[in-house]
């Protein structure tokens, strides 16, 4: 099979003598760095750490559900396990996953800047992330939280006796970490673009992150204040969310989902941003309908703020407001459809090769299509009555979050791995991992759609025996999926030492980040580049003269 990869001659090639990785040495040079690339690396290690913890918890959940009774662990333990799985995966993995690692690394490179606008705030956001992480870990070590990641009141405020406040404060901190990342991105994209880099020359990766950042800065503070209220209510026994004291538990639901629904767009938009880059590069084509894809990201960010009540359709909200929110949810689905079609059309008359990132991207398109369309089931009011709070919802958001976002994250990590480290990952091994992940994913989560329609409720430690067969499939799939994620954890570190030297532009991609050395210099560009062409201009890349190389480099 032909490939686009062009590596320098391995017998003579060596890594650049100077790069951000060897500019300085020692722990201090990492922990006090302002360099967005080093912070991205710090984030990469950190979120991988939390991903492993969250993944082990997921494994425990699947093991428990192998048999109908709660026999592997007590129901209380199970409740804590799925709560911690949710909290860790949502707040410590999915929200920062692509933006804080790949986005942090690439946005300055893509807009032609030397760093993000506020390097110290960027570092601060990593420390806040860890403070949040430590709070959440200590909540887990001290005995766990069993409210689910949704902290439903009055359960979380007056009816459980676990470490809700600790976990809430952890999320509060992690939230501010995410706010600062978003703030940095917005300012960088607005104010730090290099000469000639107009808004419509920005790579779609940047557009996706711009939309994400809007949600981060406007949505996250609402979650923060809501969790503060939950904590105060617990500590001082107040009743803002407790009906027996005059409060309103639905108010909590409104405030919580006002953030937590847009938060799913925080989780998926950066994934979409990665897919645009990958699809374009491996089909050697400009992304079809650039403006449509760019604006659809912004549309998702804006409409995403107006749909939160669809989490509450059966909670006794006014039926007419349910109508409005159902309609808005239908509208927010359209930009996602636009993206899918544009990516598919990008392949048309391309010159397609199938490297690992592209395989993950194909996986993303397929799984996200299913994940997105099953979202329509849940937006449809009458259908939502039957499907909500069942495994259908679990399957739906895992198709979007794991099938979508994790696939995109893996695509992105493989795609930019040569840029981040200067070395290639092992191709055959990674393709195997991509295929295993895909198969494992389908086997794990597809049966859950059927379980959901059967009516199996979420968050059950024990379930009626009728549901066992499909649960066994699901658990079997989870073990395959586990292998799919374990492989990159092994071969990516291996490639740091034994991988082939990647050279500047192994994929022959057009982005500014590919025109500089891999790994990049600390200051990114020796001279600030001047952008004189559109994004994804493969003719420019082909016709590049030595002179232009100098301008860019």
């Amino acid at each position, binding site marked *: 099979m032909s490939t686009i990869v062009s590596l320098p001659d391995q017998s003579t090639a060596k890594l650049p003598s100077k790069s951000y990785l060897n500019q300085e040495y020692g722990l201090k040079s990492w922990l006090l760095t302002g360099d967005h690339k080093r912070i991205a690396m710090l984030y990469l290690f950190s979120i991988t750490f939390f991903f492993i913890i969250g993944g082990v918890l997921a494994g425990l959940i699947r093991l428990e559900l192998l048999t109908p009774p*709660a026999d592997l662990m007590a129901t209380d333990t199970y409740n804590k396990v799925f709560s911690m799985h949710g909290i860790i995966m949502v707040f410590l993995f999915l929200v920062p996953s692509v933006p804080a690692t790949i986005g942090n690394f690439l946005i300055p490179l893509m807009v032609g800047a030397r760093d993000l606008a506020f390097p110290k705030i960027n570092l601060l956001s990593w420390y806040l992330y860890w403070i949040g992480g430590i709070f959440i870990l200590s909540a887990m070590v001290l005995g766990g939280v069993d409210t689910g990641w949704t902290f439903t009141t009055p359960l979380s405020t007056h009816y459980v006796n676990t470490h809700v406040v600790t976990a809430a404060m952890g999320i509060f901190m992690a939230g501010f970490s995410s706010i600062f990342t978003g703030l940095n991105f917005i300012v960088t994209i607005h104010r730090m673009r290099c000469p000639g880099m107009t808004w419509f020359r920005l790579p779609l990766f940047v557009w996706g992150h711009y939309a994400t950042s809007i949600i981060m800065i406007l949505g996250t503070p609402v979650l923060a204040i809501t969790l503060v209220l939950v904590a105060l209510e617990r500590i001082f026994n107040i009743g803002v969310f407790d009906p027996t004291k005059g409060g309103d538990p639905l108010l909590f639901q409104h405030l919580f989902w006002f953030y937590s629904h847009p938060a799913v767009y925080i989780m998926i938009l950066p994934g979409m941003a990665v897919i645009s880059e990958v699809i374009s590069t491996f089909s050697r084509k400009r992304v079809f309908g650039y403006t449509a894809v760019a604006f659809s990201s912004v549309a998702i960010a804006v409409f995403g703020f107006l749909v939160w009540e669809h989490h509450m359709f059966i909670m006794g909200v006014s039926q007419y407001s349910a109508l409005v929110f159902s309609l808005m949810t239908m509208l927010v689905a359209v930009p996602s459809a636009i993206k899918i079609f544009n990516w598919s059309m990008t392949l048309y008359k391309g010159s397609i090769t199938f490297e690992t990132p592209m395989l993950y991207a194909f996986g993303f398109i*397929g799984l996200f299509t299913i994940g997105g*369309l099953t979202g329509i089931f849940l937006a449809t009011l009458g259908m939502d009555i039957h499907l909500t709070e069942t495994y259908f919802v679990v399957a739906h958001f895992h198709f979007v979050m794991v099938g979508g976002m994790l696939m995109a994250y893996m695509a992105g990590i493989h795609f930019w791995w040569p840029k981040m480290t200067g070395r290639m990952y092992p191709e055959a091994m990674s393709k195997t991992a991509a295929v295993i992940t895909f198969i494992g994913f389908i086997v794990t989560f597809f049966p859950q759609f059927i379980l959901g329609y059967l009516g199996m*409720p979420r968050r059950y430690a024990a379930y009626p025996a009728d549901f066992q067969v499909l649960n066994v499939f699901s658990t079997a799939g989870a073990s395959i999926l586990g292998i799919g994620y374990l492989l990159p954890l092994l071969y990516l570190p291996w490639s740091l030492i034994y991988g082939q030297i990647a050279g500047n532009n192994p994929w022959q991609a057009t982005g500014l980040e590919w025109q500089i050395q891999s790994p990049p210099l600390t200051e990114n560009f020796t001279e600030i580049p001047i952008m004189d062409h559109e994004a994804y201009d493969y003719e420019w890349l082909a016709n590049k003269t030595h002179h232009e190389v100098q301008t860019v480099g």
Partner: protein
Amino acid sequence: MSHISPVLWEFLVHWLEHFAIFPPEASTIAPYADALYFALVGMTITGLVLVMSMVLFFSLRYRKERHPEAVQIEGSTLLEATWTLIPLGIFLVFFVWGALLYFRVYNPPPNSMNVYVVGKQWMWKVEHPGGQHEIDALHIPEGVPIQLTLISQDVFHSFSIPAFRVKREAIPGRYTSVYFEATKPGKYHLFCTQYCGTDHSAMIGWVYVMTPADYSKWKAGNTSGASLAQNGERLFAVMGCNACHTGTSQARGPNLYGLYNTRIRMNDGSTMIANDAYLREKILNPSLHVPAGYVPIMPTFQGQISEDALIDLVEYIKSLSSNYRLQQMMNKSDLDSAQPAPIGPANQGAGAAPLQIVPTPGVSKP
């Protein structure tokens, strides 16, 4: 097959016997929900096939070996418009379809039989108007429209009957309702689907759909002897309500006879309908809305009365309405056999201010 281990064989047989892939259809709602479901599944498959065939076809046709030079294409406004408007149109069809079903499930027809459900950690307490109490079980006749009125004693719960395709959250502090009409006698799963703490997964039970004859038999054999309204009447006396709500002209509290489902004028000039939620609210937060001509002297019963008892009281006050009695009889409810003697009508227009009842055309059950 003799070499298959008997244990494994047993296991496989057990599995196959318990292998379900589609829930039973046991209510009038279910066929509509399933039709909508299959339409949605059809849309998903169509969409998926469309996208996947594009991706696969282009991947094969335009792979590098066959198509070494890509052709740059800017985009196409026509295509963008197509795949914006067509999905939007399809989604809007589902929006309307789903909304119709939603309004049907959550707006019980006025002639439906009312059953109360109280959720508490971690059990369902079902109360039939005739005084039958059940825990984690619900017996209903087939072919009768049923309204469940749900409330929670503590945290959020959710009452789900997959075979009926209906579900409704039981929320602390407010009544919610759901409607269904069972079509097939049998035994169906009942789940709590909203996470409610430690024993969430044990908060399950069965719904028994019975033929009308069986149901009558069950009803007769399970009654505790007093209807909800009768329990309410007893509570009304025990809690001292009748000290003020005497129904006489010297009474300090308003006369409750015929109050249910009327529109009342409040102190601040607004009007409210005296429905279940209103009555419950008045017992817990009496001074929140004060009827015109009264001062808020009623003590609160917040924290002194359980949701079950509140239901009894509300049922009792409802039973003081002749209209309601008539309605309940038409509804095949069993209130008729257990009717307490109503307190005599107040001397309207003299003595203590009567409730200012505003005539409302077309207000039946809320």
